């Protein structure tokens, strides 16, 4: 089946530092979504990427979809304590026809 790895599993940064999480698929994707789950909360949709090489920005967050549509990244510039949580990618396409999630990256931000 489709393998969706996210790296790193965990990252601890000082407030103000940048952060990046990567999502890698073994198959070509149709699209990819990103979600954020705050501690004790439920996942909340952030964005969807569809086109090869697409880049989208939301304030300090930058999302990229690889040229081959097999990988994606989420970059946060100048992290804040409100960025704490687990970031999940949710790829669609290839061997899967349903919404499944990557392994997630837990971000801890020290003030």
């Amino acid at each position, binding site marked *: 089946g489709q393998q969706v790895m996210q790296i790193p599993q965990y990252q601890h940064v000082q407030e103000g530092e940048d952060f990046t999480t990567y999502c890698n698929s073994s198959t070509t994707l149709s699209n990819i979504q990103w979600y954020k789950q705050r501690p004790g909360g439920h996942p909340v949709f952030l964005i*969807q990427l569809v086109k090869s090489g697409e880049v989208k920005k939301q304030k300090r967050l930058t999302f990229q979809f690889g040229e081959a549509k097999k990988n994606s990244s989420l970059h946060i510039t100048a992290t804040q304590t409100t960025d704490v949580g687990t970031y999940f990618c949710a790829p669609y396409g290839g061997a899967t026809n349903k*919404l499944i999630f990557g392994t997630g990256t837990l971000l801890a931000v020290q003030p």
Partner: protein
Amino acid sequence: GAGVSQSPSNKVTEKGKDVELRCDPISGHTALYWYRQSLGQGLEFLIYFQGNSAPDKSGLPSDRFSAERTGGSVSTLTIQRTQQEDSAVYLCASSFTGHNTEAFFGQGTRLTVV
């Protein structure tokens, strides 16, 4: 409704008992998912309903787990003869379609098997 509603929010049950978890999706959403999340872990796919199609049950961990969706709306996840390893948060999500629109999650049901 305003969002995806799950009940109960918390459930403590004795090992061996059956439990039913309920999910009320957003009105008009044809896709409905159930996921399981153990403490500190990721989102494990359980089952997927899409319109009137046969559900995708490929994620159900054993035959003790079953789910149904009546009238294309409310869904119930049933766990029979609960085991301690079933303890987790069970999350329900719905969306307009299965794959290319935003999924909205409920608050989850925290199941504890003692």
